[in-house]
């Protein structure tokens, strides 16, 4: 058994961490998040050159990684720096493109890997919550193409994207897993409107409205009505990424808090000398290791059969959601008032950890999914 990353993964992670620490600090991220695109395009290109995007995809598709452990290595490094940018969006869209294949998809994937294209994944809707198969946006076939109408909610980096991969229903009931299709829609398409905003976690998102948006027949990605598996697979990769991002941030928060306990003095001694606080910090450490193991389980199950893969992914996201909230809240409490301030970098990690549970399914969603998948098995 070997729980360690490969040398290549470790080197890439170290390079990314160093770059982020030296060249793309948190202050820059916060400063840039107020307006689209919400991140440094220069840093984005440099991170692409260092391999942050290529490592997410298979060598056959122009990448140099693509395994769940590669994804985890990249996102853990990004999480430890609380990095902003459309990494998750690129992973989700890129995964869809990799699944459907074909000339068009592969060309787009190469543009993503090079850092030349930002493609947002417009799947979630105002009423879908975290349910992957609930799609009310419709695509009607017409002369020479498709006409899309509907609303997409909290689309990650939707106001930075050149193009969108939009899920839309081509048949079936609103919650039918069959009948969902994926379309490529350019950001400037007539009838498409985008309202961007910054999120509590410092990343940007957008509401995307489609009002009779027309796209050509060639913009259908994959088989009409058969996108659910593609979406589930992309979401699985996204879950690995978010869990790894969380583990990276959790380690930083733990170190910051332990350091504060060592240095902050009250009643004439470091507050870390009080047993009531020591035990809570010990719990934080134990729970972070549990979260890391949950991620390891998901990575290990990623290449296996669907039910065991998806159960491990849900188990990991559930665990990360629970541990991230626990550690974030304990970190603020153990810091006291100073932990409540915007000025302290800790608070931005805390918000990122809390918001993790609002991306790609929260603890309840994944716990329920874990139970349902177990019942089916």
């Amino acid at each position: 058994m070997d729980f360690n990353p490969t040398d290549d993964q470790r080197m890439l992670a170290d390079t990314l961490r160093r770059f982020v620490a030296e060249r793309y600090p948190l202050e820059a991220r916060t400063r840039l998040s107020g307006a689209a695109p919400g991140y440094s395009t220069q840093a984005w290109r440099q991170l692409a050159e260092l391999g942050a995007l290529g490592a997410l995809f298979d060598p056959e598709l122009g990448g140099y990684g693509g395994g769940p452990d590669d994804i985890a290595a990249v996102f853990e490094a990004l999480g430890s720096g609380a990095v902003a940018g459309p990494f998750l969006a690129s992973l989700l869209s890129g995964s869809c493109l990799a699944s459907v294949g074909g000339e068009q998809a592969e060309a787009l994937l190469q543009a993503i890997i090079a850092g030349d294209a930002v493609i947002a994944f417009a799947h979630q809707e105002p009423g879908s919550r975290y349910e992957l198969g609930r799609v009310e946006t419709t695509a009607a076939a017409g002369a020479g193409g498709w006409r899309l109408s509907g609303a997409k909610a909290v689309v990650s980096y939707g106001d930075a994207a050149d193009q969108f991969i939009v899920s839309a229903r081509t048949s079936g009931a609103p919650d039918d897993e069959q009948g969902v299709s994926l379309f490529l829609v350019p950001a400037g398409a007539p009838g498409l409107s985008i309202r961007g905003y910054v999120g509590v976690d410092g990343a940007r998102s957008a509401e995307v409205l489609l009002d009779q948006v027309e796209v050509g027949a060639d913009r259908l990605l994959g088989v009409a009505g058969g996108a659910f598996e593609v979406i589930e697979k992309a979401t699985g990769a996204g879950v690995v990424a978010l869990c790894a991002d969380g583990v990276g941030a959790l380690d930083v928060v733990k170190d910051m808090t332990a350091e504060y306990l060592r240095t902050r003095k009250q009643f004439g001694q470091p507050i870390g000398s009080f047993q009531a606080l020591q035990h809570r910090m010990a719990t934080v450490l134990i729970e972070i290791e549990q979260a890391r193991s949950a991620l390891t389980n998901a990575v290990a199950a990623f290449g296996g059969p669907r039910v065991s893969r998806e159960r491990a992914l849900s188990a990991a996201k559930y665990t990360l959601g629970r541990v991230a909230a626990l550690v974030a809240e304990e970190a603020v409490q153990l810091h006291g008032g100073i932990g409540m301030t915007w000025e302290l970098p800790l608070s931005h990690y805390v918000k990122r950890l809390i918001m993790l549970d609002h991306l790609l399914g929260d603890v309840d969603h994944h716990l329920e999914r874990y139970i349902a998948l177990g019942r089916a098995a």
Partner: protein
Amino acid sequence: MDLTFSAEDEALRQEVRKFLAETLPPDLAQRVRLGKHLSKGETEAWQAALSARGWLAPHWPKEHGGQGWSVTQRYIWDYEKSLAHAPPTVAFGLNMLAPVLIKFGTEAQKAYWLPRMLNGDDWWCQGYSEPGAGSDLAAVKTTAVRDGDEYVINGQKTWTSLGQHANMIFCLVRTANTGKRQEGISFVLVDMDQPGVEVRPIITLDGDHEVNEVFFTDARAPVANLIGEENQGWTYAKYLLTYERTSMAMVGASVAALGLLKDVARTETKGGRPLAEDPFFAARIARAEIELENLKTTTLRVVAAAAAGGAPGAESSMLKVKGTEVHQEIRSLTRRALGPYALPYQPESLAPGSNAEPVGPDYAPGVTPAYLNSRKLTIYGGSNEVQRNIITKAILKL
């Protein structure tokens, strides 16, 4: 045992409800419900409306302009106000300083400061915490040195809530360095409208400006503004904190927050059905509701015990711990209920007078900030760790 309120108390409840229905503008209540920020003027106008009815400080004795309400009546009042989403009154003068003045102040101090509170002439803030004196409050370093009939004050206070609106601050200052640390502290009222006082904002993680740092550089306060005796301020400070903690049970605020949570859960959907009907989430709400119902009775039991013997003692620490944790849980569940729309950061929608179109449902903008802001509850007013220490020592005698 009788858990019903007396006929007299129930009559007051009806009177309070009628007053709130007639006086509280619905749009103001709605903004409070959704966690939007009020301007200083809106808070002052609401306090003036309460004052006109004689209910700005109904817990004060009648001789000072209050109603002399019992703790039970006061509980009903606070509860009904919260339930109606009335703006909170600014507690620092009315609920914190006033009880200290009434118990320890001179006749002249009472006659001058108390009517000014009722008239809205002063906006008070609290000068307790310092960078090096948080949970360890007795470590205050800000000094007050006697110079004729004035004190000269130097030092820094922090976490000063709404200090940006205040013209007066009550401070714990060090007037002696001999003996025990608690023995050299005095309680002094300081005018903030002078060159030696500077207020700087602290922005909290939710992006809000609620707390401040206050710097004193040769600021002056007349010796007439000393409360009680010099170097005895710790006694008054502790008395005030006990009062503060009783209100920190937050029962009314938590009932109102639970109402919002249920509204959100009824509106949000999961699997095409209202989230409130989802067994997982319904169980989460039920657990919080049961805790809150228990806490209501715990609070009333402490209140009843206190009614017999003045201010409650260490039992108020129990209310603070449980009350803040219940409130945090409700805020956390509301954030969870909101799903993906907890993510957009929308401070512009919360600004006073804003009509900004929200991203997501109308209740979305306030939910995550209220959750983040609620994290302060277990830190301030003596952190919950400090409260547990008090319980351990004073009640359990460990």
